[in-house]
């Protein structure tokens, strides 16, 4: 196949003036050493500027605090001074913060299975045969993802309000029941999760559906000729074949879900206390950074959250990385 001879381009070649570097080695080894760095450079540089530098700044901020002299009013009364790790001490001792972490975990445990289950279900249904309304269904199920979270939460918030709720009025009309208190201490998890499911299923469905569409059709034809019905094909053939995509989607959804902020924040004021201002870890960060104006404590909390998530995800990503990218040049 390939020989280990070096190839030099003729000067005025069809492919332009770049000289191909001599290839070393055997097999399908890709050639130049610098090129991959050129390809990934824009992303890496932007990443450093947009993520790493601010992250470093956050770490720095987490080691500072405010010092107040006198009443604290007037010029020079406030100073930023070094605080060592005292902010972290505060974070670890803050019961409210850890409660919010627990709530985020509970929220995730509710949201992820439901959302992924629905996304997989709809993706399979959209890919199946003899199902009607598929084209319309694809657009319809994706559409909530296109609604800004703020607006979506506002809409659902209004639908949860007792006096307004069309859900409750329908239930009342049909079954004569009082109506659900969507903001009750326990139910509120489902209520907020519902907003997340509604807004996020479409996205995950599209990712899985795209994976399904890329599967070779030959595998099903054999099964169909053997007499397998659609459900069996879906569960026994398609689902295992898109397993890497499902895992990937699950991981990314988990990461996004533990960072939940938009939905509970958007409805917390109208939620009769069902959603407090520190309901999730990021809401606590927001409260401490913006409302309490303590960016140093907020920075420490952010770092703690980020580290927790890193520990949680790094191991899983390593394992699944091999499964997903196994076919590449290693």
């Amino acid at each position: 196949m390939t020989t280990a001879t070096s190839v030099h381009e003729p000067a005025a070649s069809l492919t332009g003036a770049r000289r191909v570097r001599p290839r070393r080695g055997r097999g399908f080894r890709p050639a130049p050493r610098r090129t991959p760095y050129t390809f990934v450079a824009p992303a890496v540089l932007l990443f450093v500027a947009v993520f790493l530098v601010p992250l470093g700044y956050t770490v720095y901020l987490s080691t500072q605090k405010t010092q107040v002299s006198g009443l604290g009013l007037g010029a020079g009364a406030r100073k930023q001074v070094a605080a060592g790790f005292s902010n972290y001490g505060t974070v670890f001792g803050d019961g409210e913060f850890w409660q919010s972490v627990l709530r985020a975990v509970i929220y995730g445990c509710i949201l992820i299975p439901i959302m992924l289950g629905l996304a997989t279900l709809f993706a399979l249904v959209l890919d199946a045969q003899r199902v009607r309304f598929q084209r319309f269904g694809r657009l319809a199920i994706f559409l909530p993802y296109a609604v800004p979270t703020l607006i979506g939460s506002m809409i659902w918030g209004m639908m949860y309000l007792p006096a307004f709720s069309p859900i409750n009025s329908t239930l009342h009309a049909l079954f004569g029941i009082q109506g659900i208190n969507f903001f009750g201490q326990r139910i509120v998890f489902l209520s907020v999760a519902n907003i997340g499911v509604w807004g996020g299923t479409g996205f995950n469905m599209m990712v899985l559906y795209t994976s399904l569409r890329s599967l070779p059709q030959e595998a099903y034809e054999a099964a169909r000729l053997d007499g397998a019905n659609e459900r069996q094909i879906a569960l026994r053939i398609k689902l295992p074949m898109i397993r890497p995509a499902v895992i990937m989607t699950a991981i990314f959804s988990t990461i996004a879900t533990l960072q939940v902020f938009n939905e509970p924040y958007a409805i917390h004021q109208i939620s009769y206390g069902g959603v407090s201002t520190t309901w999730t870890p990021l809401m606590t960060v927001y409260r401490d950074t913006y409302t309490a104006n303590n960016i140093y404590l907020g920075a420490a909390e952010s770092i703690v959250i980020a580290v927790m998530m890193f520990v949680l995800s790094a191991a899983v990503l390593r394992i699944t990385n091999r499964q997903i990218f196994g076919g590449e040049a290693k």
Partner: protein
Amino acid sequence: MSILTTASQGMAPRRKRRTSIVPTGVLVLGIVYALLPIIWVLIASTKTTTQLDSYAAFRPGNSLWANFQTLNAYQGGVFWTWMLNTALYAGGGAILSAVVSALAGYGFSKYRFRAKGFLFTMILVGMLVPAVVLAIPQYLLVAKIGLADTYWAVLIPSIISPYGIYLARLYAGASVPDEILEAARMDGSSEWRTFLRIGIPMMSPGLVTIFLFQFVAIWNNFLLPWLMLSSENKYPLTVGLFTLLDAGTSQPALYSLVLIGAVLSILPLILLFFLLQRFWRVDLGAGSVK
């Protein structure tokens, strides 16, 4: 080419098939669930504030045109400025993001180099850091270099998308076979030309997906532009509608403006979706996602 043709590649003859009830029923339920709140917003946007209070939830009002005109007149038509801004941020940001992701994804997928694992993991770790956490430091740094309240302050952070890079790597691996690259190299094509002439076209359905997702993400982004911008005429729709909504707690008459504004802000996305549908072709090349 219709995206719906599934059986056409097989050997079985096409014959009329009956609808499968259970999956269709599931799909219909899903459609109802997805569309119900949107229909509610559509209907709500036709009502005046009084009608919002007094009419039943799904009973339409008669003020669609009046609400539209009020929105149009609000602050001298600033709503349309918001929409243009959003198109700029989302369109420009998504295109640049797709380019950067394509480059990086192709690079990670098709080459072997020493820092590959480290760099890729580093970028993925970036996804673990939530926007809320980064927003203030980003703002402080941007202000220090004097770029606060500019279009760039919103555009540049929107370009980098770890998820997009991840997807791009996936699609590059799935749709660009190594054999073709080797053949191109043997023909003497430079890496860059190979990428442009071969890599990009083969990755294009995946790139459209990345573009679309990043477009929607930027379209819906709130926190970053809200912090970075202080001039109303640079606001995107999310920030503008939030300002309206917040003002609406003390001037409830503005609620109807928010509702119709929300409806109008969804429409371009639907349009985009329709336009880009035809790029979602079935074949992603010979390889499959294992």
